[in-house]
């Protein structure tokens, strides 16, 4: 076969493409217009450029301080009537009283419990199904069409149905949190699992791993940080759905607390509870973020 090469032209360094094509004229072109080089921008406004520690912490403090400052100025100067925007002091006062009466803690725990049950159940169902969908094409074919459709049914639209089905106790609220998050979390988990590189799976087989071992020792650990990310996104939705459920019908919980404040025209209390809901959200987010950075140190 060594002689086979002689029948074809071999040009050292030559390129076969374009041989014999007519040469195009490139003379007579006007000079390209030159752009002025842009002035170097400050580090604060340059795209993706690290900023100093001081600038960073200042901006982070301002991010929280400014809205509160605006609130304080608007209510103290009575530009906005206190019926619309309660004074900052009154809000904290109301929050303090709610906390002292024990009502806040009861409501907070009632809401947290429902989120834990509803969303916990959703995680228990969605993560295994998501892993199946991302790992086996059969699993994907089986679940994807149904879940993709169910995802688009707005969960709050189920409230009346759940009230009929489950009564007015805990069950309809837990069911709402569950329905509103399970499909999203499944599809997001499936996406994460699908992103495990093919070659990593192949290599594991050549190291002697069996199918179950590939799933347990490669696919699951590789997906874990992404799964926690997906949980972080969806727990926010779970929290929001719960408050919706409590606003509609409940005797406990932070959502009910807001409704009750409305009945007594206690705008300051409403604001206080809203702040509490926000703080709880931040705490959950930070906790999950810490978990994520512990589990996924390697993924950075």
């Amino acid at each position, binding site marked *: *076969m*060594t002689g*086979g*090469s002689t029948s*074809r*032209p*071999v040009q050292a360094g030559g390129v*076969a*493409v374009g041989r014999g094509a007519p040469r195009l004229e490139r003379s007579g072109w006007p000079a390209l217009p030159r752009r002025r080089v842009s002035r170097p921008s400050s580090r604060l406004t340059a795209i993706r450029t690290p900023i100093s520690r001081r600038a960073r912490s200042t901006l982070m403090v301002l991010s929280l301080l400014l809205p509160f400052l605006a609130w304080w100025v608007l209510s103290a100067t009575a530009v906005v009537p206190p019926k619309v925007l309660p004074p900052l002091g009154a809000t904290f006062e109301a929050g303090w009283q709610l906390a002292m009466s024990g009502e806040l803690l009861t409501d907070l725990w009632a809401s947290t419990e429902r989120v834990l049950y509803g969303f916990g159940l959703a995680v228990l169902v969605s993560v295994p199904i998501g892993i199946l969908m991302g790992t086996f094409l059969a699993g994907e074919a089986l679940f994807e069409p149904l879940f993709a459709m169910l995802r688009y049914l707005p969960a709050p639209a189920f409230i009346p149905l759940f009230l009929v089905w489950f009564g007015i106790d805990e069950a309809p609220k837990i069911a709402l949190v569950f329905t509103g998050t399970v499909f999203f979390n499944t599809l997001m988990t499936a996406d994460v699992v699908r992103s495990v*590189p093919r*070659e*990593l799976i*192949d*290599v*594991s*087989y*050549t*190291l*002697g*791993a069996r199918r179950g*071992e590939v799933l347990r*020792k*490669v696919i699951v*650990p*590789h997906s874990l940080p992404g799964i926690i990310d997906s949980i972080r996104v969806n727990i926010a939705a779970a929290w929001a759905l719960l408050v919706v459920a409590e606003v509609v019908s409940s005797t406990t919980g932070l959502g009910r607390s807001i409704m009750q404040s409305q009945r007594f025209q206690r705008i300051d209390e409403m604001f206080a509870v809203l702040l509490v809901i926000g703080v709880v959200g931040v705490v959950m987010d930070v906790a999950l973020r810490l978990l994520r950075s512990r589990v*996924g*140190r*390697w*993924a*950075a």
Partner: protein
Amino acid sequence: MNGDMNTDRNTDAVNEKWAAAERAERTERAERVLELRGVGKDFRVRGRTVTALDGVDLRVSRGEFVCVVGASGSGKSTLLSLVAGLAAPTRGEITLDGAPVTGPGPDRGLVFQSASLYPWRTVERNVAFGLELLRLSKAERARRVDWYLAETGLAGLRNSLPGQLSGGQRQRVAIARALVCEPEVLLLDEPFGALDVQTKEDMQLLIRQVWQDTGTTVLMVTHDVEEAVFLGQRVVVLACDPGRVAAELAVPLPAERDLASKRTHAFLELRAELEDQVRAQHYGTAETDGATR
């Protein structure tokens, strides 16, 4: 009378020859670790059948270092994935130690261009992966892992995560991880293709050293002809479209090679000859491409 005696003697000589040939063939068969006979692979691409490989015959003897070169599109990687058992050939047969290859296994260690390490496992635990599956005792596992870490120059990095390693270091881990399972054949799929020239040369010296120390059979795919000549005892040239064996050359260089070997006359001659071969096959497809479009 005289003629009869001669005939007898001749028959004896012939029998002797036959017996010797048979012995030789038997030992040769025993020495033959990997054998591909008429191997072909088709893919279905948007309803069209594309033949990636066709009629590939290849024999690799125990302890041999064989390099497969070819332009992109010659089915080099497909060839390795068939040998690894990650895909099944459409035609032909692949045998390892006489037994047909039916799926992937630790007797054929594989190293990809993108080291494909487990990013959550330390270097040490990446290398230990295959042994963990075998449920060896901790001490036995550690002893073996330590040997391969030392062999590949990774002893100081045992607790690092893959994300903290350079490209060359990552490939070392991938090689150690495959070798610790003591494969019959080590399959290398363009393992140094993404490395800078200096690191690449370090790795070439490393893989030669490891090959000599462990006596492992190596089948390596590369597009780098120089690398193939430097590493291989035998170089197989694949033609494109469909991928098939176009030529096979023994590398008559001494077993002891260092980077200076790359400048010797014999090396440069061989390299030039192979480069012409590969280029001819590459142009071959360029021309047919032009004709069909």
